[in-house]
């Protein structure tokens, strides 16, 4: 996500590099590039204007001139301003109220309200051990109610039955009553998509809000949205006392400028980001990470956090130690890493979080699906513990045995060993400093994966 913007800003930085000092004029050029990049990233024009003003004021100050590397200083300022603009980290939901805590979902058609409702239910149920009730007040779109019901039953979460011939408000009140009587902690109310210009529908959700008095009113926004994001956000913000934003479809390649626009207009925190259609594809929003990502630093932190959620912590720390030392990285660790990678959502999900200019050109070749990972795992499993620790033991005869054991060709075993060797080198590079070095290593490594 946000890749192109990352590319562009990286480009700007490159042009700034090698210049001893920032002058008014070369700042001008760089700033114009930043402005253009932000606009092409769909950040709304008024937001860009304010932003550029802020950056310019700061950049022309002393911090830049006294800095040794002007490029870095400017990036630092842009980054700082971006973080500032994107506001507080998503500090989760406020559920501190007399149960049931009501969460109202609102947004345009197709922004991802129903999918997000399901994801939210799963998150509350599994991470906070809440008893959740879902209800759909979408009596307009065909099968919208069914969609939520199907999601709920897949998640094993209660769903209050409703039907298209009922009034949304009546459904909501009945669900609230049901939640009270059945001791649900949280009631998530999914609503129909509506256009901000549709007065009748906006009135409807106003009434719905009034009837429910939700503690959280979440505005669901498609990350692919263009300049109109400001208008929509303003209209929803004026109609409803929003408490937060969910930014969806961030696994796409949209530049995601809508995030900045919506944040600026509503002044409400972006609480979650939606990635993928799977029910666990809801992540906390981190403004600093998002800004880092925009500036080409990648989202390594999210990656680490994700790995932690899926992976045995002790195991991970052991590995981290090894990586740090840059030695003793054996095939057993290699295998453990592959398994973790699989748990963390596969290679592509991870690549998405790494800096764009590093992963550029890799994605099309890296269709290393679970099957390929399984195959590598199989080969390693066919080795003895001693061989896994010391792959150099593997000579022709042993290789033949391993290949037969894993049901592959000897060439496959050779390829794996080659890749492992490269990976080992990469780990050493990593320990000596620089993710970028590691990524360069990775770049050569990935396309050849079986």
């Amino acid at each position, binding site marked *: 996500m946000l890749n192109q913007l990352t590319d562009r800003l990286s480009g700007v930085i490159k042009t700034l590099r090698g210049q001893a000092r920032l002058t008014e004029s070369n700042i001008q050029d760089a700033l114009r590039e930043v402005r*253009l990049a932000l*606009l*092409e*990233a*769909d950040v*709304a*024009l008024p937001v860009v204007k304010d932003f550029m003003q802020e950056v310019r004021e700061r950049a022309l100050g002393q911090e830049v001139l006294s800095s040794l590397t002007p490029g870095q200083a400017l990036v630092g300022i842009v980054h700082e301003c971006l973080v500032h603009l994107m506001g507080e980290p998503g500090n989760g939901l406020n559920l501190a109220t007399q149960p049931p805590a009501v969460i109202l979902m609102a947004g*345009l*058609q*197709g*922004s*991802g309200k129903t*999918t997000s409702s*399901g994801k939210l239910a799963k998150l509350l149920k599994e991470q906070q051990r809440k008893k959740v009730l879902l209800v759909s007040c979408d009596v307009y*779109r*065909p*099968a*919208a109610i*069914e*969609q*939520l*019901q*199907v*999601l709920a039953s*897949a998640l094993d979460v209660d769903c209050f039955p409703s039907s298209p011939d009922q009034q949304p408000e009546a459904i909501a009140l009945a669900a609230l009553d049901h939640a009270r009587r059945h001791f649900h902690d949280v009631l998530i109310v999914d609503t129909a998509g509506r*256009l*901000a*210009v549709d007065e009748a529908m906006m009135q409807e959700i106003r009434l719905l809000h009034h009837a429910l008095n939700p503690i959280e009113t979440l505005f669901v926004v*498609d990350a*692919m*949205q*263009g*300049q*109109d*994001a400001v*208008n*929509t956000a303003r*209209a929803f913000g004026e109609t409803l006392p929003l408490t937060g934003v969910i930014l969806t*479809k961030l*696994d*796409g*390649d*949209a*530049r995601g*400028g*809508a995030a900045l626009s919506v944040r600026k207009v509503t002044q409400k925190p972006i609480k979650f980001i939606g990635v*993928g*259609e799977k029910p666990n594809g809801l992540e906390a929003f981190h403004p600093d990470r998002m800004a880092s990502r925009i500036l080409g630093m990648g989202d390594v932190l999210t990656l680490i956090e994700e790995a932690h959620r899926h992976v045995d912590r002790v195991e991970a720390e052991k590995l981290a130690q090894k990586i740090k030392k840059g030695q003793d990285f054996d095939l057993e660790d290699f295998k453990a890493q592959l398994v973790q990678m699989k748990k963390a959502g596969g290679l*592509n999900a991870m690549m*998405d979080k790494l800096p764009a200019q590093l992963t550029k050109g890799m*994605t*099309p070749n890296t*269709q290393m*699906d679970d099957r390929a990972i399984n195959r590598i795992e199989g080969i390693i499993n066919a080795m003895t513990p001693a061989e896994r620790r010391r792959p150099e033991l593997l000579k022709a005869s042993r290789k033949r045995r391993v290949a037969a054991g894993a049901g592959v060709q000897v060439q496959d075993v050779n390829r794996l060993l080659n890749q492992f060797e490269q990976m080992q080198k990469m780990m050493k590079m990593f320990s000596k400093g620089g993710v970028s070095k590691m990524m360069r290593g990775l770049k050569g490594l990935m396309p050849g994966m079986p």
Partner: protein
Amino acid sequence: MFGFFRKSSQTPEPPSEGWWNRLTSGLSHSRTKLTQGLGGLFSRPLDDAWFESMEEALISADVGARTSQTLINDLKREARQQHIKDASELKPLLKTALVNLLQPLERPMDNRAHHPFVILFVGVNGAGKTTTIGKLAQHFQQLGHSVLLAAGDTFRAAAVAQLLEWGERNQVPVITQEKGDSAAVIFDAIHAARARNIDVVLADTAGRLPTQLHLMEEIRKVRRVVTKADPSAPHEVLLVLDAGTGQNALAQVRAFDEAIQLTGLVVTKLDGTARGGMLVTLAGEHPIPIRFIGVGEGLEDLLPFDARSFVDALVE
């Protein structure tokens, strides 16, 4: 606005009087917005600031920064060459430039060439594929064609139920499968359409983002399998595009076109505040005919694209 009617001359008269009203009311929202955005500018004095506000107005309509820049630079040159001093004289120039860009996209669909005529709908999640199919089913029925729907979105919860309901509303058969992938359902549907002598097959697919490579691979497969059912099919591959989409629209069009060779676009949700300016960018960078635009919630709010009306709405 009459441009929209020009299209319907080759089709039967609009069946309900609501058609015209819906169109005008549908576009009026964006029209009001746009008037504020662009129209007002033509009465201001002509100077550098004017060109800048003009460029910003285009950008705010999602035309895109680079495309807007190019358009404005051209406009500046024209103004200089023709010694234009008055902003109102620039209006026809800008309009012409935009119409020239967009006119090649104004190519309505001809569904009489094949029988059954197979239309495959693709797009990102939430673009409005299923709703578009529901509306188009009615559109074709009004033209006197028989229609069959293929519930190819086997992925999203209740997507099949959604299409079934559209089928019920329009009284058209819907082909579904208990299990099985998109490709299999659509394959079945084409055979069913042939057996029942159906004119048009509308095939739904799951929403997918171009970054989801396995899903892009799947859609390629759908196309291959459709070709097995009928070597000349699919006769149309339509990308459904949300008018609110920003510059990512270009990436979407490129990715889907590369994967399954698009024949046209359907632009939905033009009745909101989104102005659909990215169509101008698309026209310049990766032109694909725009078959329909959606200007309202109603079943008949799907209209053929007309470049002149669109541009009028953009700069009037």
